[in-house]
């Protein structure tokens, strides 16, 4: 049966996918808004006692990674495959460094554990929920990089790359709110 109206064009599907992705991001943002509210309620005027230098380093890593993510997508749109692959790989590496910095180092050296009062609860919950998103973003990047290596994306049709980039920028924006909330607002608890 010729169901030509059953399968939508790439352009139409792109429009649907974009709308779906943005709805997902709006939805997901509510989790972070909720965590932010919890932070303000439980630690008014205070902040967890954290290693400032490390915070600055990981934040820089994540911000710079967003720049490379943007480069990767733009290069692909202009038909520069090598540039796209390079940008994706750098983003992936920077994201991984961020994860190591937060979960691998900050979690270990923090002078409090998750069960140590409101600061422990807030710090580990906020960084934990965010790190989980970074982890999924890194996996997404790895998939895009691997499929890119196989030559799946073209300058015209690369929805997966675009989705990955939007998601990565979203994670970055969340951290732009979380970094000051954890490292800068208020006076240290300890």
């Amino acid at each position, binding site marked *: 049966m010729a169901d030509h109206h059953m399968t939508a064009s790439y352009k139409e599907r792109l429009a649907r996918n974009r709308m779906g992705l943005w709805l997902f991001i709006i939805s997901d943002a509510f989790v972070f808004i909720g965590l932010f509210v*919890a932070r303000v309620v439980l630690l008014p005027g205070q902040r967890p006692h954290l290693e400032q230098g490390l915070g600055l380093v990981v934040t820089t890593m994540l911000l710079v990674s967003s720049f490379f993510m943007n480069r990767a997508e733009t290069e692909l749109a202009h038909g520069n495959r090598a540039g796209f692959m390079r940008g994706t790989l750098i983003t992936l590496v920077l994201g991984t460094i961020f994860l190591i910095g937060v979960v691998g180092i900050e979690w270990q050296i923090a002078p409090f554990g998750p*069960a140590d009062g*409101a*600061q422990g609860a807030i710090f580990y*919950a906020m960084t934990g929920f965010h790190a989980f998103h970074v982890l999924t973003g890194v996996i997404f990047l790895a998939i895009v990089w691997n499929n890119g290596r196989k030559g799946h994306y073209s300058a015209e049709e690369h929805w997966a790359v675009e989705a990955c980039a939007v998601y990565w920028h979203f994670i970055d924006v969340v951290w732009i709110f979380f970094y000051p909330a954890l490292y800068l607002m208020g006076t240290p608890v300890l």
Partner: protein
Amino acid sequence: MNLLSLGLVHGLIAQIAGTIFGMALVMFFRVVAGLPAWEREPVFVGGAIVGAIAFMIGVGALNDWFKWARGEKTSDDISPDPDKPNWTRFFSVDYDHKVIGIQYGVTSVLLLGFGGIFAMLFRLELAEAGITILNSDIFELILGYSGPHLYNSLMSLHGIVMIASILLGVGAMSNYLVPMLIGANDMAFPRLNAFAFWINVPGAIILLSSLFLGGFDTGWVGYPPLSLRAPLGMQMFLLGVYIVGLSSISGAINVIVTVFRLRAPGMTMMRMPIFAWAALATAFIQLTATQLIGLSFQLTMLERLLGMGFFTPDVGGDPILYQHLFWFYSHPAVYVFILPGLGVISELLPVFTRKPLFGYRWVAYSSMGIALVGFFVWAHHMFSSGMSPYLRIPFMYATLLVAIPTGVKFFSWVGTLWRGKITTPTPMLFVLGSIVIFLMGGVTGPPLGTIATDLHLHDTWYVVGHFHDTMFGGYVFPFFAAIYYWFPKMTGRKYDERLGKLHFWLMFPAFMVMTLGQIFLGMLGMRRRVADYDPALGFDPTQLLITIAGFAIFISVIIALYNLIRSARKGEVAVGNVWNSRSPEWQIPNPAPLHNYAHPFHVVGQPYDYGLQDAPYVDMDPAGTPAHS
């Protein structure tokens, strides 16, 4: 037909294996971290999470996404395998929105049955003062507990299982109806749609398992610190609800994109069948608010597992914070439950009055209005909670404002009935019943909205009565109306009209007795969620009456199920436009063909112009192509 080839069976086997594997995994990590391998709570929670993921892999809902991640091609053809009998489609991953809609519906009714059985058990307990049947040793033997704790667990589970059932019922209506009503052949994202349905199955299993893992005695609200002290069953409740919430969110994305992007040519927003508006408003609430019940439940789980101090004052937490996060979802959630039902009422009234829907535009906007206002009223559940006293006043204003868009709906329905040519087959009876019951829910609301009167009524049976009014009027009755109305479209056969009417005439008066009894007891000051009450208070006769009414409702639902199951197989064949409706889904054969519309129809008029000559809603064959091309 080999049962082992069904996706559902694969999924269940995978869930069992995954649960065991997950438990082993947690124990392994505990040993690595230098902890004793066995501790009940983390091991069970880990097992449940891995089990749920394993179910999704086993059932095959993730196959195409894995293929995509590996860079393999996926097929866009969603047609079923012609070698397999048709019924197997309902037990495996299928991408047709009609199949998914029916899968949602059947699962919803199953959960309705569980919730109903729980209710019947504790209704028997409440029928007279004194702890009676729940002290039976049978429960001790099967569940390991009995008495008041069992009452609390059954009452809590009744609440949450019914809510899950309603969410699935809403999913059933949205999925089955929205694409057909707006002239699409499927939802925007068929794979996400299948994912959203199937995730409910492990979610429901985990939720129900809480009964066997110590139960939980917090009510469905799960307020800490009580929820932090409850048995292991609490974790299964929190996790199960979280998983069902994932389904809500993914379903909502699908509905919104479908409504915005897949409408037939000529169908402007103001020409959509009104149910699509209701589904859209519902989806916006589900999309955003659900995340916060998810968050509050996750934080509770983490506090229980790791001792993180979110909600316990002794370790720096705040129990009121939980209530804010929880009600930010759970108040809008009741609009998720009722808006689709109100949409069904508005959709069916014109058909059975043979008149246009009175004030279409106002009805459409009132759905959006309710959804919007619904976000600013959550703290009215907390007037006596000890939250900031001054905050209560704005929440009182916002709460009372909900009456305005709700009132518009009632007036529009009355306007539609006025001077119609009214017939009352079963679906219409349920619609009329909905209006009366929902009205009772509506008028019992303002006394809960003004703070002074709420101080008396809060946490009494009055709230129970009010809530059951809104749920039966806003969901249960419209849901049955929708099932009866679209039954021929789903099965190609007619239901038994006499049994349908019997269902209504048993359920409606029984419900009235039940709810009036509840409201009456609440006004007198009977607290809700009590396993027992002082016989000196004289509540026994009313409680007995409520129990009898509850059983009558239970029986009426059994009659309905008998009717539907029997008619689906042996009912009279339903040909053509059974209800003489203007809506596009009735212009195609029964049951609806695989890809609903052979070619896209054009919308050329208003949806509800009954009584206007030569003003069709849709042109089913705009190009003049011969059928079956």
